[in-house]
């Protein structure tokens, strides 16, 4: 080779090496040794925490509160997890990040949709008989707006790891290591759909709230059925992809062998399987989607009952984005094996639908907590610089489901179950105390620790059916002849005579002309007068059972929200009194006959109330100067720890600085 060619080769090699070096992790990185650890504990309640600390059940939290600081953390309006965590992530209120509730509606169609993400199929397809060839890719879109704190940190070279963050699916583009949390769908696209197979003729088959009950027959001691996976967008009409499986039942013993694809395993009655990887074929031999699920053999004799968990996105081979970088979910899988990727992993719906009983549900919930701990134990020791955030879900979901077993005033209280499981929530608190203990052992003088929750908790004794109240008081009208108790999603509503409607857990909307599809309320004076009237009337509603006000705060979003997306918000956020919450049916646009109902469901604790009644917690190993810190202060606090100014539009202040003069949460009608 000539000399010039050698020189050219050398130049190319030098260029490539330089390029590679510039991309190496740690290059252009923060060189300081300051560290910030954040434990995000969904639903940790300050009252319960204080009680358990006083009883000596949470020694690590007690030590942290004693040696550092412990404050109540003002939550979001409304105090719902997707909203609250979005406040924390962005430092913005819902007007800035655009998440107002679990459920939003499209005013052009009045169709509801899940608020944090949207998965869209390809826009253009080629149809060949029963096959559909997509001419482009589908999209998964994160609907939360605003710059997450970890992107700002990474822009300043601060290495950041964020695990299981809610309201971050699909994970926003980032150089940080992030794993999506609450809001991540299962493979069928919802928040989690279980399958329950039974030959019990007394169980009604069909769809239930959280899953599907599938009738099967035991023939020659064998059950053959299909596991439903994602919709097959390569087929006309999108039939679900199915995977057949068989269960061979022992004629005498309560045990069975399950065969699915190339996997075979034996389960005893009352046992859970490990994770089972399943491939759903979309185009035979060419395209398939991988999922993971767990089997629970509830009963073998006399009736066959098999529960299969929602099919989670496979972390080793994700069909939808789960992490940044994309390889992170796979790296975690290598370290800890399969894990729940579905955002709400605890199958609360299976307990509510009676498919799992309390003991069975708790087994599953404990496994979720153990999995989260395994991921924490795998990742935390690797943290040496920058910011480490880890989210724990168990106090929230189990607070929802187990409250009735520790509160004898609750309508769903059962003394027998309470004797068995009354301390279940307490044990989940103690597990979190164990995590904190591990963190405390690693703290040094260069490390700041924040332990926080997005909101607290309260009993959910009574339901208030907001849409029923609007109907009874003439603000909402049904089509002539419509049965009040039939239909949901406002199917029977006469929009031409409707001035206001409730949607979601706390949202109250006006049927506004120019915004809603068939709006009739004129924006401006008429709308304002109607809001005044609704606010005053709703604040005066008393529960006839005890004379207690059902609603203690009506927050006008035009006044409490700031930012470009405030225009999409409900007009009022309804703040229910402690013990009260919107009824399940009214949330989705239905009209139960009763205005108030006892809550006899397993879902017995809640927080979707007046934000001032359910504050979260904030603990730190440093002195917190702010007397009333809020969730919107957390992102500024994180940035300030590394000398970074607030990001665009951030409204809070570092909690380690003197208290801010005012808060944004004051512009509401309250009692």
């Amino acid at each position, binding site marked *: 080779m000539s000399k010039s060619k050698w020189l050219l080769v050398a130049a190319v090699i030098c260029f490539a090496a330089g390029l590679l070096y510039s991309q190496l992790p740690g290059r252009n990185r923060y060189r300081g040794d300051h560290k910030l650890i954040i434990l995000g504990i969904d639903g940790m309640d300050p009252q319960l925490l204080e009680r358990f600390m006083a009883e000596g059940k949470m020694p690590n939290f007690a030590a942290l509160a004693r040696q550092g600081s412990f404050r109540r953390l003002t939550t979001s309006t409304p105090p719902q997890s997707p909203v609250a965590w979005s406040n924390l992530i962005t430092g913005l209120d819902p007007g800035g990040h655009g998440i107002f509730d679990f459920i939003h509606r499209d005013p052009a169609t009045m169709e509801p949709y899940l608020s944090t993400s949207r998965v869209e199929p390809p826009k253009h397809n080629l149809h060949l008989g029963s096959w559909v060839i997509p001419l482009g890719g589908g999209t998964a879109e994160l609907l939360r707006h605003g710059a997450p704190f970890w992107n700002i940190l990474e822009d300043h070279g601060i290495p950041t790891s964020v695990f299981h963050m809610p309201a971050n699916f699909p994970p926003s583009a980032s150089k940080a290591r992030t794993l999506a949390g609450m809001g991540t769908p299962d493979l069928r696209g919802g928040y989690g759909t279980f399958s329950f197979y039974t030959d019990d003729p007394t169980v009604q088959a069909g769809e239930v709230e959280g899953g599907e009950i599938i009738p099967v027959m035991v023939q020659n*001691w*064998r059950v053959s059925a299909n596991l439903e996976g994602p919709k097959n967008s390569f087929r006309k009409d999108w039939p679900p992809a199915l995977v057949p499986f068989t269960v*061979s039942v022992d004629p*005498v*013993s309560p*045990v069975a*062998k399950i065969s699915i694809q190339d996997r075979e*395993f*034996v389960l005893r009655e009352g046992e859970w399987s490990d994770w089972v990887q399943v491939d759903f074929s979309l185009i035979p031999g060419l395209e398939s989607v991988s999922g993971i699920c767990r089997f629970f053999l509830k009963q073998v004799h006399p009736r066959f009952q098999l529960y299969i968990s929602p099919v989670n996105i496979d972390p080793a081979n994700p069909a939808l984005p789960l992490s940044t970088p994309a*390889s992170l979910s796979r790296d975690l899988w290598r370290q800890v094996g399969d894990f729940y990727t579905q955002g709400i992993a605890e199958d609360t719906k299976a307990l509510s639908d009676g498919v799992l009983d309390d003991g069975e549900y708790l087994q599953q919930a404990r496994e979720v907590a153990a999995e989260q701990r395994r991921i924490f134990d795998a990742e935390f020791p690797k943290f040496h610089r920058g910011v480490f955030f880890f989210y724990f879900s168990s106090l929230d979901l189990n607070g929802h489901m187990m409250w009735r077993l520790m509160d004898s005033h609750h309508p769903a209280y059962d003394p027998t179950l309470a004797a068995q499981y009354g301390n279940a929530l307490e044990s989940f608190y103690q597990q979190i105390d164990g995590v904190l203990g591990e963190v405390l052992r690693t703290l040094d003088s260069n490390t700041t620790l924040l332990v926080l929750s997005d909101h607290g908790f309260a009993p959910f004794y009574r339901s208030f059916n907001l849409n029923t109240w609007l109907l009874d008081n003439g603000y909402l009208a049904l089509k002539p002849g419509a049965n009040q108790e039939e239909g949901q999603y406002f199917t029977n509503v006469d929009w031409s005579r409707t001035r206001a409607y409730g949607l979601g857990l706390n949202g109250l909307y006006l049927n506004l002309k120019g915004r809603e599809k068939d709006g009739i309320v004129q924006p401006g004076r008429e709308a304002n007068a109607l809001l005044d009237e609704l606010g005053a009337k709703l604040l005066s509603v008393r529960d006839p059972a005890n004379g207690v006000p059902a609603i203690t705060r009506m927050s006008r979003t035009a006044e409490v929200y700031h930012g470009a997306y405030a225009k999409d918000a409900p007009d009022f956020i309804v703040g229910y009194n402690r013990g009260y919450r919107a009824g399940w049916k009214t949330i989705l646009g239905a009209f139960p006959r009763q205005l108030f109902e006892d809550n006899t469901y397993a879902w017995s604790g809640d927080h979707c109330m007046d934000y001032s009644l359910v504050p979260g917690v904030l603990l730190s190993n440093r002195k917190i100067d702010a007397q009333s810190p809020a969730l919107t202060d957390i992102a500024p606090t994180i940035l300030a720890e590394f000398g970074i100014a607030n990001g665009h539009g951030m409204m809070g202040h570092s909690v380690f600085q003197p208290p801010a003069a005012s808060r944004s949460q004051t512009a509401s009608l309250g009692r």
Partner: protein
Amino acid sequence: MALGTPTSSFLVLPIASNHALIFLFVLSIITGLVMIVLFGYLSDQNAVRRAKDQLRAQLLAVRLFQDQPQVVLRAYGRILTGTGRYLRVSFKPLAIIIVPMLALLIYCDRYMGSLPFQANQPILLTARLDKPEALDNISLRLPQGLTESAPAVHIAEDNEVAWRLVASGEGNYTVNVLAGGQELGKQVVVSNNLAHLSECRLRGHLWQRLLECAEPALPANAPVRLLAVAYPARDIDLGPWTTNWLVVYFVVSLASALLFKFILGIEI
């Protein structure tokens, strides 16, 4: 020495470890080298060279005389016959090489195709019998360290009994199945390392036994026709992808063979 029995495991012992990928790469490179040396030794190198030269000449003719269809057509015809000639001179060495290659693949698959069980991992042991009546008269005798973690599942439709076992620690266990007055052993390996694994013991079925089993056949008069354990499949982890070991093996051994072809000047 039976092909694939544990006694022949000295072949891989020097490099056997839990680093399956390293083992696989070393094996593939050595295979590539051995294949190319064997091909050079067994083939008529002059004949191979001549056949390839003639093919090259006809390909050159196709490129040079594109404006003369008769020449191009004739060249295509000669390419076809030249290809046949090339295949003929390559057939003998390939046919000879393929026999040890196949044996090597079967042998290595017993190490690379599956993972041994881990301690405390459920182990599914299946016995398939001739008659459904025998299902109730079959039992296990377990070695120390292995226990049943669930009652046996009797599946009359398949003449099958399935047991779930669990091992308390690593070891090369023999589970004894007692049926029809006979005691039939089945190997179960619990290990964190690369290990020689046999999924089944069969009665009869010579070819299936050669391909899938690495244990002696079940006695011809045994009431059991199959004893099997399902070891978890081993995936070779290549960062963003996982794949079967055979894919890595073929790609690396082929690349290695091509490299050694140039180094050793062997014509293939």
